[in-house]
């Protein structure tokens, strides 16, 4: 093969021009309330996520952060309020429909197929992109194979990007936690998402792993222009990475703005440190 036929620079956002310009609203949450029986997990929350930004959602334990992500990717359906994605107000949506529309996520507790290799796990992220039908795939040769090769190429680009070539063939169950988190990010990227939801991507990591992961998040955001919503507890990370921060406490929004503003807000300080009664 000739050297200059290397794959072109990766653009994991290709194929979908959603008509939303950078800096404009990509997703907005309007007056959303979510209840589980008598418990109100989220109460009348509104905020927006703009295209191309890193949006952090923070708050003490039990503030409703993960519930919020679950509402955004269609896992929970709020009793009140609406969610608008790319200007369309959506009705009750299933998670796989959210995925197909360009919302990918990772989980707080890694949710990978532990017996499968890194490669297969990331490949599974491509399944929504596979168009050939079951019969064609059964015969494999011809169109199905061409499609598989194209997907594999994309997956290899992600492996290269995340620097996990050395674990390509290893079952993910045997990998250290930090690498599993990276594989999970890879699977989410395989979906070529417009909006990437990261639920505590750095939980349980050591400093070095955190630094690596931060770099990958910044690179995903800058190189592919992927919009990112992230839940994180490490304030240093949040302040460094996020363009804007929304703060939840007991299901309510208590602050929203750029990191410096949020950091200075008395309400936020009280929520984290408690107030004397």
């Amino acid at each position, binding site marked *: *093969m*000739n*050297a200059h036929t*290397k*794959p072109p620079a990766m653009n994991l956002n290709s194929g979908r021009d959603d008509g939303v310009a950078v800096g404009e609203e990509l997703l907005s949450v309007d007056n959303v309330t979510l209840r589980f029986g008598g418990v109100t997990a989220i109460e009348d929350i509104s905020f927006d996520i703009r295209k191309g930004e890193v949006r952090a959602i923070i708050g003490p334990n039990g503030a409703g952060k993960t519930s919020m992500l679950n509402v955004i990717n269609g896992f929970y359906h709020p009793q009140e309020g609406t969610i608008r994605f790319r200007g369309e107000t959506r009705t009750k949506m299933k998670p796989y429909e959210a995925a197909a529309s360009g919302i990918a996520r990772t989980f707080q507790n890694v949710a990978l197929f532990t017996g499968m290799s890194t490669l297969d796990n990331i490949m599974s992220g491509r399944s929504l992109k596979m168009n050939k039908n079951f019969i064609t795939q059964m015969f494999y040769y011809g169109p199905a194979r061409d499609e598989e090769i194209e997907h*594999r*190429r994309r997956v*290899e*680009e992600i*492996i*290269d*990007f995340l*620097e996990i*070539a*050395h674990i*390509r063939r290893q079952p993910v169950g045997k990998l250290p936690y930090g690498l599993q988190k990276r594989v999970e990010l890879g699977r989410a990227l395989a979906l070529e998402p417009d909006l990437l939801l990261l639920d505590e991507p750095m939980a349980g990591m050591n400093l070095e792993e955190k630094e690596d992961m931060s*770099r990958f998040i910044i*690179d995903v955001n*800058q*190189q592919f222009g992927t919009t990112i919503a992230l839940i994180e507890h490490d304030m240093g990370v949040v302040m460094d990475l996020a363009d804007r921060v929304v703060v939840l406490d007991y299901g309510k929004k208590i602050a929203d703005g750029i990191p410096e503003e949020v950091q200075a807000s008395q309400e936020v300080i009280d929520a984290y440190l408690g107030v004397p009664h």
Partner: protein
Amino acid sequence: MGNATNGLDTFPKLLVHNASVFAGRPAMRHKDFGIWQTWSWAEMLEEVRAFSLGLQAIGLKKGDKVAVVGGNRPALYWSFAAVQALGGVPIPVYADAVADEMVYVLQHAEVKFAIVQDQEQVDKILSIKDQLPELKQIAYDWQRGLGDYDEPFLHHITALQTQGREALAGDAELGSKWLDGINEGKGEDLSVMLYTSGTTGKPKGVMLSYDNLVISSRNANQFDSFDETDEIIAYLPLAWVGDHIFSYGQSMTAGYCVCCPESPDTVTENRREIAPTYFFAPPRVFEGLLTDITVRMEDASSFKQKMFKYFLDVAGRVGEKILNGESGVSLKDKLFYRLGDFLVYGPLKNRLGMTRMKVGYTAGEAIGPEIFKFYRSLGLNLKQLYGQTEASVYITAQPDGQISAETVGTPSPDVEIDITDTGEVLYRSPGVFMGYYKNDAATADTKSKEGWVKTGDAGFLDGNGHLRIIDRAKDVGKLNNGSMFPPKYIENKLKFFPNIKEAVAVGDGRDFTAVMLNIDLQPVANWAERNNIAYASYQELANHPQVYAMMADHVDQVNQDLASEERVAGAQIQRFLVLHKELDADDGELTRTMKVRRSLINERYEPLIEALYDGSSERFVETEVVFEDGRKGNISATVKIEDAKTYAPQSMKEAAE
């Protein structure tokens, strides 16, 4: 041998030549995006030319020094030829050096350009750029993370190549001018500067000419008959002379293919895929691979384990003889060896990526005879060589069929060896360096007017003309009876026994050699368990009579070994003891890289050393120790001292083992 270079006396000339004679043959491979990408010699010439013209466009001129910083990536290997084609001098720098270490080399070499691998290296260079007024341009290979750097002196290599290609398309004469520039190069020109790592004092820039490298490479290729069909994997640091010779010099002169791994973490896997025909590794790599195999075999089914063991025994008995082509192997053994090759050795070699290995070399340190023997018994032609940056690597190498774990072989082609009265090894060869850059004093100190270079190592030539390296020349002492006392040589012999973790030999300026030993807890504890030997602590185990018997046995074997070597026969161990505590870096007895600190140990264990020489059979000692949390405590023990049996020197030992 060797001097006939047919006018092909520089690497750019060789590249142009190879592109026509080996046109379609692979020159370089690189695993990228999970697939091995290959460049033929003709394609590589095109890449190098584009790169070179791009560098010319941003101002690279004859005589300019260019730092090359990064891992084993094709673009960095191309940069050598691209720079040399313009008359520039590449200076590969260790990529893992921190900025402060790098700044000395870059300042000393007055580099005008830097060609680096990625953002990490760019950041490093940018952080020291203030101190490098000479540095004009930086080119990088991997764009990742560098998207929003807008410094005008930063260039992506691919962009430079595009610039070069456009210039070539726009100017009909540029191509031939470029070739004219290459033809102006001469063999005696400075080719590359390699900084020695500088464990003592500041690093020194070793200047090597094209003649040094081209002739040494040609000789080495001829010695092991390498040609364009061979393949190696490049995984050692670019700044190390070995990699420069193996992955650049010898490839250019033989036309063989150099394969760059996907990443430093995938070398083992990539080696298996490529199965190189020529492989170099320091002893620790061979040790590591063997440990891997052993661990994996312990998890295998009992049938497999039995089969593995049975056939390894067969290999241990006859493998080396078959490899060396010796007679006296019975037909039955030959048949079993064949069967073993099919069932065990073949799959094992495949696993190691050594299926096609014609020649493997190990150098740098002493390799354990058992490990060495293991690989050779599988039919792998593993050999030792001895070399230095100042010699363009090759000083001695083992010819096929004359292999031993103790020697480093006969002088390489065109190399002359001499031993001084003090035992230091000197050499003279076409590979001898031009001098240290801007350091005439050091040059004069190392290299004589007649071209003899001091190695700093003490050694001797054995009866068959093979060189044996004993120790660093400055560590070698003398016993009162006048015989040579090489401490590390004796210690290494002891440490090859798995039961011995550390050994310290004393004897310089004394009547005889004595040693203090440290048992290796893991194997010794295992052995104790199997032999129903009860013990409560390290100290008790170390002091156990049966452990002493075991150690006496090891010392005895080392003495027999020493007795067979004329020069060191006088340094046989007469008394030994087993230390009551492990030598520990926390107590300052070892360096952090696990080397023995002689002076400190001599001071700390003075009562024991005294006892070794005053004839007493035991001595009570108290030693201060530092616990991991920094607290201090005392360990006291009564240490036994035993005499060892010595042997009459057998200067006329039978031919090579």
